[in-house]
């Protein structure tokens, strides 16, 4: 086999120069003739009935474009999984910050005064704001019973085990909402006229927006065009929400006779109104034999979906499938429910349900180890999955898997064993500073869950253009994670040409096929493979045409592309996803191959706890993972470091403060994400185990690093303080104080 030209090498970011020089064009940079600015008037209450809208004095209302629910031409609901979320409130208000009225004007300062001058007359209803209250149906705010989705995964006979098991360990674990905090807040521009609707925006999934706009305006496929602008981060936060903003801008544009309308959220509006990670509660009942073998796992996993369905059923599904952790357990029951509350809808966020349920199981393993009087390493090693074992859904692990080895190597990098021994002794002293080490072993399923990829049947392609370069055609977007560079490496490798011969076409639904949404750690592994196959097809076409004699260099290749176009007019190749033959999934019983493959990891952390201030400082962090073959080491390390930083915030400090269903700390000053001063050096290691179906052997990597930090950190806190009580994240200093000094006035 020939040596890889590009794969496995750290090629610089394709769009890096434009970004650092400020040349990159973001949505708010777009200037257009006749542009109007749009603003959203939102509900201040979490639940109620809209009785009227008053327009205050001192504003020239006749100059404004004003849109209400009455102006909607087509389906008033956002087209996603369920059509239950209205673009604008008609009469029922189901969450605070819900959009009621839209305004547009060319003077954005006057627009802000107008927004403040609108008064909504609302008859308030008692809101449902708590997950347990929703499960108990204290109020019914959605359907018959508040249940968005319920599912059951069953394996073996869980209830046959309790009577005879040597140990039964029970625990309850909670996780909070988390804000995505991409650098660039949401923003969009729309033009809606007789010809159709065009949208430019900061977004992850052009075809999601396409679908929603088509249905909102009753238009055909080719009457709607969605163009992704340079996007300053997404993390799932720009997966479904842009459909709503694009609809708002387009409704305003339609009413304004086709003038372009721009809606840009500021940070506070973005934080309080858009989606966040689902809060969760997991109850675990587990049985072990005298040696620590896991005999049964009974999990009750519940998540708070907020006011509308959005992506919640899929989040629940991923969370449930990951809930059993990387363990072999013959008797498993996972009962998963997602419920409605009157908070803004929770949505996609890197990890998508898995960080919640993996936090619970990985925290529980350390709680169980303490109860059994076992070392947490030994307890896990007895139960870790290996090749030939089955997961909770009955998926057989068919690839080589050495989780004990991954565990050992991560702990060795942290110097875990000797530190643990040392801190066991030093923590006995009365000094206020305690130290601890902890770890978590986990996995993340790559690509869509279950039959998701089969239903999507994604298409991606490549096109030779008159500049002699080959362009990647995919709706999978660059949102900071390195898609452009990765696609270019894959294609340049397949074509055996320099990186300069490859460009990535701007995602524009008029130009690129639907390669599916930019989610689920699938862009590299699934779409990258399609792009690779298409590139191989294009190369074959060129070679067979006789225009590309081998061997060739970049210049010869470009000449061949140009010559082919002159002769035949068009040079394109596409590839469509087909389900690998061994993959079987039953969506009714939730049994079978939940994912084509998993990425595997062990993360280990060292913490320092100041028992005077209850602050936890992360002193050292080791992130070791098996993600197939690494295509671009610098980008891959960056993905892991960023995910770990986000995971540290999730575990320790990022708390959404709710006040009657509204986010009270929607400012970066008061929402405490970690800064570089708070982070340790994050040490990233890759174990390479090529995955046969990924491009160049790669698996998905994007979400994995979000799953491990929180349980590893809290396990380290358990070690430092000698208490198993920290079971809720974020473990803020206030929470830790309540654990350590509950009675203190």
């Amino acid at each position, binding site marked *: 086999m020939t040596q890889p030209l590009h794969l496995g090498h750290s090629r610089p970011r394709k769009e890096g120069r434009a970004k650092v020089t400020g040349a990159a064009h973001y949505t708010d940079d777009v200037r257009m003739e006749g542009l109007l600015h749009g603003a959203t008037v939102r509900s201040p209450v979490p639940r109620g009935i809209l009785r009227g809208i008053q327009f205050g004095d001192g504003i020239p209302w006749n100059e404004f474009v004003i849109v209400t629910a009455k102006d909607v031409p087509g389906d008033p609901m956002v087209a996603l999984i369920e059509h239950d979320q209205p673009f604008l409130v008609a009469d029922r208000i189901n969450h605070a910050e819900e959009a009621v009225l839209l305004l547009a004007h060319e003077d954005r*300062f006057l627009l802000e005064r107008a927004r403040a001058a609108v008064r909504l007359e609302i008859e308030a209803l008692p809101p449902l704001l708590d997950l347990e209250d929703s499960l108990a149906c204290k109020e019914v705010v959605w359907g018959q019973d508040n249940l968005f989705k319920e599912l059951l995964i069953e394996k073996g006979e869980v209830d046959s085990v309790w009577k005879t098991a040597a140990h039964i360990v029970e625990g309850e674990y909670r996780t909070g909402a988390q804000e995505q905090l991409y650098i660039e807040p949401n923003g969009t521009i729309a033009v809606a006229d007789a010809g159709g609707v065009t949208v430019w925006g900061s977004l992850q999934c052009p075809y999601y927006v396409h679908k929603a706009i088509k249905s909102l305006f009753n238009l055909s496929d080719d009457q709607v065009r969605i163009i992704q602008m340079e996007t300053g981060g997404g993390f799932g936060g720009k997966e479904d929400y842009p459909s709503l903003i694009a609809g708002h801008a387009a409704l305003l544009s339609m009413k304004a006779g086709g003038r372009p309308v721009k809606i840009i959220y500021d940070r506070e509006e973005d934080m309080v109104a858009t989606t966040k990670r689902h809060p969760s509660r997991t109850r675990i009942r587990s049985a072990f034999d005298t040696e620590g073998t896991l005999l049964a796992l009974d999990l009750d996993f519940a998540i708070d979906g907020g006011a509308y369905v959005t992506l919640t059923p899929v989040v629940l599904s991923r969370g449930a499938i990951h809930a059993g952790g990387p363990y072999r357990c013959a008797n498993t029951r996972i009962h998963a429910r997602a419920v409605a509350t009157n908070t803004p809808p929770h949505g996609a966020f890197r990890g998508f349900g898995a960080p919640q349920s993996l936090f619970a199981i990985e925290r529980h393993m350390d709680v169980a180890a303490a109860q059994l009087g076992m070392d947490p390493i030994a307890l896990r090693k007895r139960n870790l999955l290996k090749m030939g074992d089955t997961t909770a859904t009955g998926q057989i692990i068919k690839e080589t898997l050495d989780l004990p080895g991954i565990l050992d190597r991560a702990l060795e990098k942290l110097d875990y064993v000797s530190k643990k021994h040392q801190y066991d002794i030093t923590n006995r002293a009365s000094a206020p500073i305690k130290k601890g080490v902890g770890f978590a072993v986990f996995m993340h399923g790559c690509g869509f869950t279950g039959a998701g990829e089969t239903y999507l049947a994604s298409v991606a392609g490549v096109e030779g253009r008159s500049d002699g370069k080959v362009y990647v055609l995919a709706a999978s977007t660059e949102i900071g994670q390195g898609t452009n560079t990765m696609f270019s490496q894959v294609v340049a490798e397949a074509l055996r040409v320099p990186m300069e011969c490859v460009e990535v076409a701007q995602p524009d639904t008029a130009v690129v096929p639907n390669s599916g949404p930019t989610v689920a750690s699938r862009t590299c592994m699934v779409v990258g493979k399609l792009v690779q196959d298409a590139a191989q097809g294009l190369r074959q076409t060129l070679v067979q045409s006789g225009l590309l004699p081998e061997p060739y260099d970049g210049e010869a290749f470009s000449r061949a592309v140009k010559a082919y176009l002159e002769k035949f007019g068009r040079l394109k190749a596409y590839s469509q996803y087909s389900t690998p033959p061994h993959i079987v999934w039953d969506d009714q019983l939730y049994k079978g191959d939940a994912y084509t493959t998993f990425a595997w990891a062990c993360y280990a952390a060292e913490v320092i706890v100041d028992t005077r*201030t*209850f602050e936890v400082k992360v002193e050292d962090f080791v992130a070791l993972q098996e993600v197939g073959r690494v295509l671009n080491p610098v980008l891959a390390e960056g993905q892991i470091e960023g995910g770990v930083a986000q995971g540290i915030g999730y575990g320790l400090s990022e708390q959404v403060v709710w006040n009657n269903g509204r986010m009270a700390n929607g400012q970066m000053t008061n929402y405490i994400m970690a800064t570089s*001063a708070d982070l340790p050096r994050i040490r990233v290691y890759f174990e390479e185990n090529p995955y046969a179906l990924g491009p160049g052997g790669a698996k998905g990597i994007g979400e994995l690093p979000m799953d491990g930090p929180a349980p590893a950190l809290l396990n380290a806190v358990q070690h430092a303080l000698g208490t198993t009580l920290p079971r809720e994240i974020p473990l803020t200093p206030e929470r830790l104080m309540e654990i350590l000094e509950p009675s*203190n006035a």
Partner: protein
Amino acid sequence: MKGQAPGCRVHTPASLAGALELLAAEKGVWRPLAGGTDLMVPFAAGKLPFMDFLNLWGLEELRGLEISEDAITLGALSTYSEIRNHSLLQREFPNLVQSAWVTGAIAIQNRGTLGGNLANGSPAADTPPSLLTYGAEVQLQSIAGSRWVPYENFHTGYKQTVMLPEELITRIRIRRPKGNNFHFFRKVGTRKAQAIAKVCVAAYARVEEGRVVEFRLGLGSVAPVPVRARTVELMVEGCVVDTLLIAAARTALMEDIRPIDDIRSTAKYRRTVAANVLGQLLEEMVEHFDRMA
């Protein structure tokens, strides 16, 4: 941005006298603007109830630092960066330098001013606890003349001060520590940078012949204004260092602070941590003077 920039007026006076004349002539109209780091946040959020700004940034009269035998006098426009970079301040006023270091980010430190920090009147500001430990005084000037106010009397309530509408803060004077002394500053803000304090504790102590002869304890974020903990100070002053009753001091602190629950923390956390940090500082103080003895 929700701030109404087009409707704003910004007047830049040529001199301090010009600024004071305008403040006297149009009382209550002009909002003094120094570094702008406090004002711009609510302005951008559309929550600042002022539209007319008196831009003090160019006034040389309000800059600089004077050194005398007993005191240092800082111009009101001294920035956090100037404070933390000044070698004499680093040597003699470590609490003030540390509080300048932990205020905002570098960009904020380059622009934010000591006078602005006081005029803004936030109980969560980082420099006030330090200033309280150094017996600071504030010079207020109007067209009618100037007066010196002890800083501990400067704040009268939440975001309220003794300043009259026609007055500006012109200087801040701090007394130079003498003899055998100890300084302590700790901000608890959950993250290390870019945080607003949940609890801030600063202390200054001087010992003569093994006895505490001067003890000043300043706290932030535990009351409607930055406070001196008088009860604790009285209890510690006059004590022989080795006989300090730390547990009693922690209890006494509860008389001096009135913390509340807010979006950043809880009253209980603030009480508990303020007491714990007081314990830490007294232990470190005893250790420090024992080492010196």
